[in-house]
């Protein structure tokens, strides 16, 4: 047991959260400096608000609390090729325009209900048309990339892995049968 605690402490010492360089804009929002793509603060806000709608603050922290938008931006900046980045940026504009044409407002200014119903409608029509992040249509490429990275960010975050599920760096054992509560959805 001591050994495991020692290892864990070592990990805590060695690892620091890697944060992107950022600064505050005129409205007091954090703007992330990206290396390979340019996103102004409205565009960054849009991504953050979509992420927050997917993983909202409830009785537990939401996307913004957990800095998931920063991770999404980092992934967009570092892990997508030029062609995909261009398509995603194009899709961001298209997404924005679609919201405006429907509500005459920016996504960030919609109520939570409006945001949720918009995204739900968007997802169901995309699913009907079988569109996903590899889709040639830029608006879907944009949305599904943001969603995929948001969920990935959440499910691999320290908060999720230590507070929501059981994760140990050093399990020390393999129990072949652990009873669990039945799936709610099953």
């Amino acid at each position, binding site marked *: 047991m001591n*050994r*495991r605690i020692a*290892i864990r402490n*070592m*990990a805590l010492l*060695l*690892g*620091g*959260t*890697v944060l992107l360089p950022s600064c505050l804009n005129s409205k007091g929002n954090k703007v992330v400096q990206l290396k*390979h793509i340019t996103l102004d603060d409205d565009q960054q806000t849009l991504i953050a608000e979509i992420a927050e*709608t*997917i*993983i*909202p603050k*409830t009785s*537990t922290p*939401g996307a913004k609390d957990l800095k998931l938008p920063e*991770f999404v931006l*980092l*992934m967009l900046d*570092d*892990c*997508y*090729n030029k062609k995909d980045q261009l398509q995603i940026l194009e899709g961001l504009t298209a997404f924005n325009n679609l919201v405006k044409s429907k509500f005459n407002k920016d996504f960030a200014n919609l109520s939570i209900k409006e945001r*949720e119903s918009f*995204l*739900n409608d968007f*997802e169901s029509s995309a699913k009907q048309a079988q569109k996903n992040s590899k889709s040639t249509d830029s608006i879907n490429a944009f949305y599904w990339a943001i969603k995929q990275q948001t*969920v*990935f960010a*959440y*499910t*691999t*975050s*320290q908060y*999720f*892995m230590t507070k*929501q*599920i*059981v*994760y140990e*760096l*050093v*399990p*020390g*054992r*393999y*129990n*072949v*049968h*652990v*009873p*669990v*509560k*039945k*799936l*709610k*959805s*099953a």
Partner: protein
Amino acid sequence: MSANTYDAIVIGSGISGGWAAKELTEKGLKTIMLERGRNIEHIKDYVNANKDPWEFPHRGGRTQKMIEDYPVLKRDYPLNETNLDFWANDKESPYVEKKRFDWFRGYHVGGRSLMWGRQSYRWADFNFEENLKDGIAVDWPIRYKDLEQWYGYVERFAGISGNKDGLAVLPDGDFMPPMDMNIVEKDVAKRFKDIYKGARSFVIGRTANITVPHNNRTNCQYRNKCWLGCPFGAYFSTQSATLPAAAATGNLTVRPWSIVTKILYDKDTKKAKGVEVLDAETNQTYEFFAKIVFVNASAFNSTWILMNSATDIWPDGLGSSSGELGHNVMDHHLNVGAGGTVEGYLDKYYFGRRANGIYIPRYRNLNGDKRDYIRGFGYQGGASRDGWGKNVAEMNIGGAFKDAVTEAGIWEMGIGGFGETLPYHENKITLDKTVKDKWGLPVLAFDAELKDNELKMRKDMENDAKEMLEAAGVKNVHTYSSNPYLGRGIHEMGTARMGRDPKTSVLNGWNQVWDAKNVFVTDGAAMTSAACQNPSLTYMALTARAANYAVEELKKNNI
């Protein structure tokens, strides 16, 4: 003894080089182990081993920068953020692909013993006999009985966990207690018994992860982070096992940054007298001398060294008099299998990350089975529960979705094949002197491909996977078959094969180069055929056997 003179030289520090160094030093030989890359110190240099997933900036993924920097490594899973430093730099060490060959290398102390898959299977007697029986290539000069005691010897030291399954196709070893199957795998194993009545088996993987403490190494902690280096020394690597044993004798010198450019051949004695080394950091050239040389530079680099040696006598290099040096490139072909979902078991989970899976040993072309190809394949796989509740249509965003992703998903089961590749003379590597690496050295050109026998086998590998999973009760089974290219198994074999006749083989039955009896090649290069089992355990056994023989011969003044 001058400063650069030793009893033995070992070229390479991976799985087989580590074994050569251990055996030779324990038998009293002053030995220098030459490694082309940097040093990696056990535990201290496993810089990512104790990081949690969220501590990696891209959570383990690959960036565009990495993809640009590693044009070969990017072709499969090895390109990732967590252990990038363990893979050779593609740009510093290029090679030529006349035909596509995915070559994933580890250039550092420990070599790929740090990143290997650890699955450890003995060959059965029929594996050594099939070339003769099929009239393919040449006959192995040895049989299972020649290697049996050495398998046991290396298993007891390396620490192989496994179950004594009593299968004729897959001989039992001297095992540590096996890892466990999870609840779904246990049921599938039972169904296999009912359906196939022993003609096909479904067993727990035999892996070089220790399950009880052993030689100052801590038993496996079920982290499944082996390829970052194990702070517990729980899996076999040069660093965790053979290197400390060799160092403890006081007879070992390790020299990193030492690219062996040639073996120095003495035409009067018809033996090697040493090696020439290019220091990878300073570009200075050195010579080291010894009575015996073990070549363990990884299959194709071992052959590269032979090709560059004694060219004044044999233009194509030491061991080329047979016309077989560089020929018979082999690997295991993979990326073919099936997966599906398992209904039920939703109140059952497991805890811990088992660095192992299940194994289905070969059954094709055995016991009366006859296909439109020869040889066969095995499968590795396992069952696990999917991470979070996808497929929850009405909960795609928002608070309910956030709750749903914390739920355990459904059970899934998958198996992937490892197929035997035949030794074709025309599948070869050659030296390309027009292309140079970072150090100005000529590089290897690959001209090898899967042929009809392998491609026919792949159809069975795909269809059988589906058939067996469905028979075992797995639902929604999908199959896949992609990337029919050599190299991806990272099981490079052949190019300096063992044989019974110097006219048709490079090495004799003791892994000695026919043309220089004090030069031993005991890594994948020596393989006469490939079987379908993961090969490293066989390299270990061949190396221990050859080292024992070398020292005996040395004592008798025969070499």
